[in-house]
């Protein structure tokens, strides 16, 4: 069973899952860093992205690559809109208020999709170029697998540069330390928050498109569990910390895939339980995560 090719396949799987978790976790962490909001509607941005990609792919008028681009921009705009309508009125309210609101937003999206598109899962048919397998570096893998990892890594590098180099990136990091003082620098914090939501939702859309491409299926609730797991990834890395989210995403991807790959079948069904037990362990042993510094037991 433990043949080299099996191992390699599991390794590729883990890289894939890790890449997707990392993309989703970054979005959670960026928003959490600034607003202290655990955005339960974040996973649903994946769902919206995946449905949009499906729509583009099944319309013959648009080229296949727009199945990535259109969801990114539409969902980014949706993220900004949701912030404006649902979260901004709650600035300064107790932190649980925004958490509750994000639960409601999540329910709204999931049931909105159910009502308009039905809960029936829909198959995703990838363009033929993405399905074929190639041999590279002595490894045999599907093109889609390579695309997932390459795209995720490219986006993470781009985001890191953005956050390091640009003024708005610096402002984002400043906000995650102290929003009030950032305002005193003459920064329009609402703009920073809007950008954070756009980035967050846009990355989730990419993750949703990749996820639906990998598993070949889309349904209204597909984003919920990956969204929660991405939270686990963010906590493992240290929530609020972008490199931490990346690290946490890959660690979680590997832990989960190898749990399923190496545990006997009657145990591997417990994979989601395993992930959340992992969360509990991290929260208890090292609540600030691997790379985080922030004090956690704030009331």
């Amino acid at each position, binding site marked *: 069973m433990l043949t080299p090719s099996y191992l390699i396949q599991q390794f590729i799987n883990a890289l894939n899952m890790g890449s997707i978790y990392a993309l989703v976790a970054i979005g959670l962490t960026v928003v959490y860093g600034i607003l202290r909001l655990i955005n339960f509607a974040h996973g649903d941005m994946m769902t919206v992205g995946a449905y949009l990609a499906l729509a583009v792919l099944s319309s013959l008028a648009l080229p296949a690559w727009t199945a990535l681009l259109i969801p990114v921009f539409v969902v980014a705009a949706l993220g900004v809109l949701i912030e404006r309508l649902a979260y901004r009125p709650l600035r300064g309210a107790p932190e649980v208020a925004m*958490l*509750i609101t994000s639960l409601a937003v999540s*329910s*709204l999206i999931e049931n909105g999709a159910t009502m308009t598109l039905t809960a029936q899962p829909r198959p995703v048919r990838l363009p033929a170029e993405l399905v074929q397998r190639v041999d590279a570096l002595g490894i045999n893998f599907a093109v889609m697998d390579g695309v997932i990892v390459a795209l995720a890594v490219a986006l993470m590098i781009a985001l890191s540069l953005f956050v390091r180099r640009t003024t708005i990136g610096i402002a984002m990091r400043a906000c995650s330390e102290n929003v009030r003082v950032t305002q005193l620098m003459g920064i329009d914090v609402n703009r920073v928050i809007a950008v954070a939501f756009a980035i967050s939702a846009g990355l989730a859309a990419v993750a949703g498109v990749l996820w639906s491409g990998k598993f070949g299926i889309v349904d209204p609730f597909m984003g919920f569990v990956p969204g929660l797991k991405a939270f686990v990834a963010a906590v493992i890395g240290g929530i609020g910390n972008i490199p931490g989210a990346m690290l946490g995403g890959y660690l979680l991807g590997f832990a989960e895939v190898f749990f399923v790959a190496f545990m006997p079948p009657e145990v591997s069904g417990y*994979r*989601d339980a395993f992930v959340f037990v992992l969360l*509990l362990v991290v*929260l208890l042993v090292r*609540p600030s995560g691997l790379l985080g510094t922030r004090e956690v037991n704030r*009331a």
Partner: protein
Amino acid sequence: MKRLLPVLWIVGVMGLAALAQSALNDYYQRVLAVIAINIMLAVSLNLTNGFSGDFSLGHAAFMAIGAYTSAILTLPARTKAIVLPDLPPWLGQVELPFLIAILIGCALAGLVAFLVGLPVLRLRGHYLSVATLGLMVIVQVVALNWQPITRGARGISGLPPLTTLLWAYGLMLVTVMVIWRIVHSSLGRAMMAVREDELAAACRGVRVFRTRLFAFVTGALFASAAGALWAHLITAITPSSFSFLLTFNVVAMVVIGGAGSVSGSVIGAVLMTLLPELLRRVETALAIGGQPLYGLSQIVIAVLMLLVMIFRPQGLMGRHELIQVLAGLSGARNKPSSAPAELAGEAQRVA
């Protein structure tokens, strides 16, 4: 008079329940039973989410424990031999009365809450919310995978329909009265002190961790009883019955009714049971091209919740009890500084 009040409540509610049980058809009886169960869920969740200030999302987990435990204990041995042949023999043989089954479920849920609460309640704020949500996922996954005990995704069906209106309203009364007493005792004041300012409470001698753990475990006990009632009302349970949706709806009841008010939770539970029930008819009535508008009732709940959070974040009742407000209203004619005035003051502060 004050001593008589609980007795009046018991006699009144149980009398009406008995009347309804004999007079109403099955559908209305079922709706009424669901109302009682939802009241139990909302009032018990409010103990943590409203009073001690820990925003738990794990209520469905305790409900599932109560449902599965009581189901296995009340299921006739003959049925068990067929649907759950792999049960350990002693469990396969056992056939307990409803009340005992409920109590064992409560004990189990309380134990789980205690063991999980010890580590998890060291966390606060969002972390606690997500950790309790994690507990819910764990319980659901266990229910899905522990084939010999839970029958996995197929679930357990054919339960005896033991949940009558008398049972439902009896246990609902117990829940509300016990929690009302807790909230109005020194323990309840300790919970609220912890919610307002943990440090200050500790300085005044409140044992903060114990207080929060007590609220969490007590909430779990009643959630478990509600789960048992629910299982024996619907007579079939599957792991997906205890999903996030359930937690979400109970949270909606608490938030809309007013976290921190027992009567608020009762009102929230009644509203949030009746409204979706009415909307479900609309869903099928509005069927477009033969396709029912599934999801509409959840959408309405979500929108209601959003509106409440923006325009009345303290919920319908705020932190006040119906009795106070009514007393305030009748007293308002001669005395201006009444409960409603204070309500307005609170609204202003929150805004």
